[in-house]
């Protein structure tokens, strides 16, 4: 019986699509059968982030309207055999689907998958309502910025009044160097304000842009900082207790090594 998890944020551009692609990838790498669903009808992007844009024939709206069967619209990932994408329609608008359609669609997906991850559109209107309606769990993504945290708070309030299970929080794009000099709110600050359970912290990482350029989620390569963070979140979703790494509390292992290298006297003669 699948777990339906919706990833939402209120504000746009904080990393919903990136998180959906990477959590789907990380869960599939751990042997789960995963469907990622792009609920951003009219502004689809999960397909390009995952590098599957050339394989789309049918989409979510086609399934809802009965133009095709669900299996025909599901796109198998190139790299992971257990990962599937249900793309959004690009030439329709959010009103082509309603919450009841989404619940019905996800009930069908539940039969075949361990996890169904829904990438919600930004905002709190129809598209958001469609994305949240079938969810068993909700992940709220924010960045440590006033605008994103404010919108996250609004979403948390809406989820509470919809009597959804309390959402969990992912703090994305945290910059340890800025936190260290007091120019970015840290995890404790954000948690104090939003007062919900923390699910993960993803540090700012240039490799996110590179991976989106190539259409290969960073979680495929566990060596990047963001990739590791998404792997940790996937493990927590599977019930593992994974400690939260401290960001901004002094240099990490790499920083200490770098400091050690730099502290050695440089032999200028040898260089010239």
């Amino acid at each position, binding site marked *: 019986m699948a777990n339906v998890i919706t990833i939402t944020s209120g504000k746009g551009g904080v990393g919903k699509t990136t998180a959906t692609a990477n959590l789907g990838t990380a869960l599939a790498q751990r042997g789960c059968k995963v469907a990622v669903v792009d609920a951003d009808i009219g502004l689809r992007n999960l397909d390009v982030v995952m590098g599957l844009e050339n394989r789309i024939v049918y989409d979510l709206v086609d399934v809802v309207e009965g133009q095709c069967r669900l299996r025909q619209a599901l796109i198998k990932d190139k790299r992971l055999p257990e990962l599937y994408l249900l793309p959004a329609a690009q030439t329709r608008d959010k009103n082509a689907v309603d919450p009841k359609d989404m619940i019905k669609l996800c009930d069908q997906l539940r039969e075949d998958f361990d996890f169904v991850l829904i990438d919600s559109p930004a905002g709190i209107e129809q598209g958001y309502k469609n994305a949240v309606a079938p969810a068993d769990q909700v992940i709220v993504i924010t960045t440590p*910025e*006033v605008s994103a*945290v*404010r919108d996250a*708070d*609004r979403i948390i*309030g809406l989820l509470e009044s919809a009597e959804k299970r309390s959402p969990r929080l992912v703090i994305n794009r945290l910059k340890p160097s800025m*936190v260290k*000099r*007091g*120019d*970015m*709110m*840290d995890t404790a*600050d954000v948690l*104090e*304000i939003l007062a919900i359970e923390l699910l993960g912290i993803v540090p700012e990482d240039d490799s996110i842009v590179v991976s989106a350029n190539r259409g290969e989620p960073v979680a495929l390569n566990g060596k990047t900082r963001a990739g590791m963070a998404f792997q940790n979140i996937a493990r927590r979703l599977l019930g593992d207790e994974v400690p939260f790494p401290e960001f901004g509390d002094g240099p990490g292992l790499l920083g200490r090594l770098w400091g050690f290298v730099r502290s050695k006297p440089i032999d200028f003669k040898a260089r010239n």
Partner: protein
Amino acid sequence: MKLFGVLFGRTKTKSSQVAKERLKLVLVHDRIKVSPELLDTLKGELIGAISKHIDIDQAGMEVTITRGDKFDKLVANIPIRRSR
């Protein structure tokens, strides 16, 4: 660094702390859905109701919303004029 800041009169609060304080204030209003206009209306009606019975300092009266752990609180600070 702190001493340096004090000596040169640069005791600026960290921007992360400014962000946090501003957020706390803005969220009080976002969460309760009480607009400043509604607060004004409440204040006017409270003055009307209370001043029928007690002599209050209307200019010194404050009606605000503060955040608690579990509940937000509507706080009315109503100074009473002493009779002598």
